[in-house]
Structure formats: C-alpha cells, structure tokens
C-alpha cells in the first residue's frame, strides 16, 4: 500500500523531472528571442505542444536549429521563414492571415455577429409580444367575467 502511494506521488511529480532541456544563449536578449520563437513553433510530432514544451527528438532538433541560427545572427523572421519553408504554415502556432485562412481568422467575429443579431431579434420579438398583450377595458371585463365563471366549476 505504501509502495503504491509512493508510486502515485512520484508519478504526479514526474513532470517536474521532465523539464525540457533548454539551450543557453550568449546574451539575455538572444535568450528572450530564442524562447519566444520556441513558444511559437509547433512540435509536429506532438501537435498540441510547442517545441519549447516538448521533449520529442524532433522538438529538440528544432530548438537546436533555432539556437544555431540565432547565434549566426539570423533574425526571428528568417527563422520563421526557414521553418515554414520546410514544414508549412502548420508549424506556426499563429497561422498567417491569407486566402486559405480567411475563414479561420474571421470565424470568431462572424459567430459573435450572428449571436448579436439573434439576440437583437429575440429581444425585439419579446417586446412586440409584450405590447400585443395589452387589451382594452372591455376585453379586460370579459376576461375577469370568464375567470369568475371558471371559479364556479
């Protein structure tokens, strides 16, 4: 039982031990760029992780590539271009806005707009429904008479 408990605790703690090995850059500025690039590139093996988060072999190689290119004086854009030429836009966590991705980028706005339009019409219909209920005094009398009669049943 104690062994099981120990195992459970160790398993829970294991992500701490698996912290991703990080490249150490020469200056703090380079280190910042290095980390920000890694956080924008997708690990293609484990598709929902960035290469900064992933321990996959490929992620390690891509981090090495980023580090080397930065040391060679390449800009962030150079490195992003290098990666997209090889792996396509899919490697970017933030896809560029272009023909193919128009719908992707505009969809949230369109959904919001359609929601607003729906709410507008629903509210308006409720209002008109509420006004339609108002009746004149004669109808009012009829209603109360009918209600009274109903009491007798």
């Amino acid at each position, binding site marked *: 039982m104690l062994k099981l408990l120990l195992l459970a605790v160790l398993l829970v703690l294991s992500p701490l031990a698996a912290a991703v090995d990080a490249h150490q850059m020469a200056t703090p500025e380079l280190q910042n760029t290095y980390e920000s690039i890694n956080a924008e590139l997708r690990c*293609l093996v484990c598709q929902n992780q960035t290469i900064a988060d992933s321990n996959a*072999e*490929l992620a390690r*190689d*891509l981090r090495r590539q980023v580090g080397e290119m930065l040391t060679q004086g390449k800009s962030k854009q150079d490195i992003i271009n290098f990666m*997209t*030429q*090889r*792996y*396509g836009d899919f490697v970017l966590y933030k896809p560029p806005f272009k023909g193919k991705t128009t719908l992707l980028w505009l969809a949230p706005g369109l959904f919001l707009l359609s929601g607003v339009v729906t709410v507008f019409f629903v509210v308006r219909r409720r209002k008109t429904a509420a006004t339609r209920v108002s009746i004149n005094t004669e109808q009012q009398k009829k209603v109360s008479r009918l209600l009274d009669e109903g009491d007798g049943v």
Partner: protein
Amino acid sequence: MLKYLIPLAIFTVLAVFLGLGLKLKPSEIPSPLIGKPVPVFSAPKLDNPTQNLSAADLKGQVWLLNVWASWCVSCREEHEVLTQFAQQKAVTIIGLNYKDDPAAAKNWLQSLGNPYDISIMDQDGRIGIDWGVYGVPETFVVDKQGIVRYKHTGPVNAEQIQTIFLPWIAKLKAEA
C-alpha cells in the same frame, strides 16, 4: 414552417462539416516541398562513409527517398513491402537513415533485407529538417528534374505501392 426549417438547415450544415472532419487526418501535414526542387544535401553513404551522395548525382532519373531508422517500429512494418517492391526494379530507391546508429542500421539491413540502391546517413537529423521530416517512415517521389512531386507520411503498404507509387513512377518516367 421557417421555425422548423432553420434548425434543420443548421443541423445539415453541422452534419456536413463534422462528417468531413471525420475524414481529415490531422497527423498528415501537407508538405510545402511538393513542386519544389529537392533540398540540397550531400551525405555519407551508410556502407561506405568516405563516399558522399548528393541530389545532383541523381539528376535525370526518377527516384524515391525513403526515410527510415532501425529504431522506428513502423519502418519494420513497411520494410517487407519495400523489399518486395525493390525486387521489381521499378525505380531507384534511396534510403535516408535518419538519426540512427550506423552499426544498428547495417545490422537491420543485413537481417531484414536491403531494398535500397543506396542508403545515406543523417545522424544528427539535419537533412531530415531540410526535407520537413517529422514522422518516420516517410517517402518522397522525385522526378528527373529533381523536383519533389509526392510525399507519403507513415508506412507504405502493398496496396499503396500499386495504387499510388507505381502510377506516379510511370507518369514521371514518361516525362522528359
């Protein structure tokens, strides 16, 4: 009437999109390399590391680049299909031995058969990055001009050899 038609329309649109979504394979990333010249490489041969093979050496012929490794489980699955296919001598097959130990790789070819006309080594995975390799095995079809025309990710099976690769090879061999 409209009250019933609108939900029906929404349902139909959703069903179509979700249905299409089921058929997508998110693990297959389209290669930006298709239609582009092969990445420049020059790599030592597995059986003779003092000799290099480069893309220029293969100009004028249709060839396949098969990315493999002895540590790769699905390569083993593919290997039998590939060795059988190689016996037809339909096309030049180049093996890119990706991030592998040369001794283990040689061993693998010796015990399981060697489908490759030439195998080259990419021990640190740099050639792999240039080709956009992310999931071994991968197979590229290259034409006589050295343009990448088709990429297959994952193990190739016998049916795919017949329905995908042989038609591509025939087509590219007919080109000038």
